[in-house]
């Protein structure tokens, strides 16, 4: 029983990082209806720049956070300019395929920046874990969970309550009309990508600060975990992204405990498969799906 609870706690904490990754994803895929496979690799580029200043100049944690987020944002804008801005809104497949090509490019760029396979990443909090009766809570895990909840609330506010979020949703519903009521569509979409990458950058920093190491494979890992968590939680739903991350984290934690690390990923993909078969729109995916169809109807 103690093991069960401890595993669930660990799962929730790790799941928070998946949720954060899914949050950035859902901003682009759920809200803009475009799949950016280079999302993870953009974060990885940010993390590499963060590691670079840590290894070369032994930069402090604040500088590493800023560098990681800034690098992720710049890489995100680069991907948007190259793969998404030139394509018509209807050419989602073309954007997705070109974002795959840029993924490869970004991985090679990371290897050029730092050629060894693995580099150290500065830890966030090194203190002893909190003891709560028989259970242990790591401080960096708690910070991750807090960040996930705060950021998702912030993103939810921006998308559904702020004028900028309304402008984004107006663009998805009716791009031509959005132009003609004075919305700067190009700049708004670019800012949405930048925002998603910033969220991803924060997520990437937190994950790597816990792992304390970074490899070029982190890009693929971030894309996969974010994508799975988003699909389980529900496309385009911001609470769904966090919830999907938590579910994925808990399921992984328990399968790791019972079956070991090889089976863990197997279970994660099985969970995704079951979710796609039983509930294709995801746990909280109904509302946004209806929303898009309303947008189309009036278009």
């Amino acid at each position, binding site marked *: 029983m103690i093991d069960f609870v401890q595993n669930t706690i660990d799962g929730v904490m790790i799941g928070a990082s998946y949720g954060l990754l899914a949050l950035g994803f859902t901003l682009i895929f759920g809200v803009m209806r475009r799949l950016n496979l280079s999302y993870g690799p953009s974060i990885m580029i940010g993390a590499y720049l963060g590691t670079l200043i840590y290894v070369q100049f032994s930069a402090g944690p604040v500088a590493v956070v800023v560098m990681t987020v800034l690098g992720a944002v710049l890489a995100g804008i680069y991907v948007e300019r190259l793969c998404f801005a030139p394509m018509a809104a209807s050419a989602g497949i073309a954007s997705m395929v070109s974002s795959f090509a840029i993924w490869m490019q970004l991985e090679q760029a990371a290897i050029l920046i730092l050629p060894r396979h693995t580099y150290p990443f500065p830890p966030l909090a090194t203190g002893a874990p909190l003891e709560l009766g028989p259970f242990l809570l790591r401080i960096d895990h708690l910070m991750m969970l807090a960040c996930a909840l705060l950021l998702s609330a912030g993103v939810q506010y921006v998308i559904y309550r702020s*004028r*900028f979020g309304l402008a984004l949703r107006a663009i998805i*519903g009716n791009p031509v009309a959005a132009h003609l009521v004075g919305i700067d*569509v190009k700049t708004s979409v670019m800012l949405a990508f930048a925002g998603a990458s910033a969220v991803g950058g924060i997520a990437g920093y937190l994950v790597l600060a816990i792992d304390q190491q970074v490899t070029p494979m982190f890009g693929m890992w971030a894309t996969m975990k974010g994508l799975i968590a988003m699909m389980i939680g529900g496309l385009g739903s911001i609470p769904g992204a966090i919830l999907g991350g938590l579910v994925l984290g808990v399921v992984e934690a328990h399968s790791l405990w019972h079956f070991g690390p090889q089976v863990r990923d197997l279970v994660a993909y099985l969970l995704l498969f079951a979710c796609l078969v039983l509930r294709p729109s995801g746990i909280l995916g109904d509302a946004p799906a209806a929303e898009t169809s309303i947008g189309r109807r009036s278009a």
Partner: protein
Amino acid sequence: MLELQGLTKHFGGVRAVEKVDLSVAQGEILGLIGPNGSGKSTIVNLICGLFPLTDGRVLLHGTDISDLPPHARVTLGIARTFQNIRLFGQLTVWQNLWVAQNSGEQFGQENFLRRWLGGSRRARGEIDRTLEFFDLAHKSDELAANLAFGEQRRLEFARALAAKPSLVLLDEPAAGMNAEEIDQLDRRIRMLRDDGVTILLIEHHVELVMSVADRIAVLNFGQKIAEGAPADVQANPLVREAYLGTATAA
């Protein structure tokens, strides 16, 4: 205030608009009429910058705006409605206006955070007043997609006004409306003109144009064939042949 000089648009081999010269004076209601396919909607699309000109220029207050993107033209004071309604269906009525609202300050000078993350009390009051003017205040929290057709038409008009334009392009605002709704539309267009807004009205409904317009321009096959006071245009034999003649025959 608005001047079209030699406005030309070809779609492949189709001469949709051919060397049209037209000027709209400050504070007037100019009616633009013509048979189907005569290029009326294309002219509206060219004025608001939806696609590039083949030739000619669009001047606003004497400045050439031919190369500006659509959203920049809106900030200069040109707003429009659409013949086929293009609302943001997933947003509420109130949000449709908010997202289109122009704070009235010079573009780029206003605070980005205030413009995009919040909204001033004054701005909210303006939206409420616009909704009342169009008799939509009681619907302000409904999704635009759930409105009745007539309400959607009014919301289109209201949204165009939210940008606080000095020139409004109305693309067939009466399409699908009943007699009572057209009366209301007539009244609203006049009130708007009395408020100092210049209006370019494109309309199939001849009675409405004849009643409300100060001047009328007539297009046929992408060219302007007549221009003048409603009575003169109505009496013009070219116009009768091209447009009114066929309308009475049909």
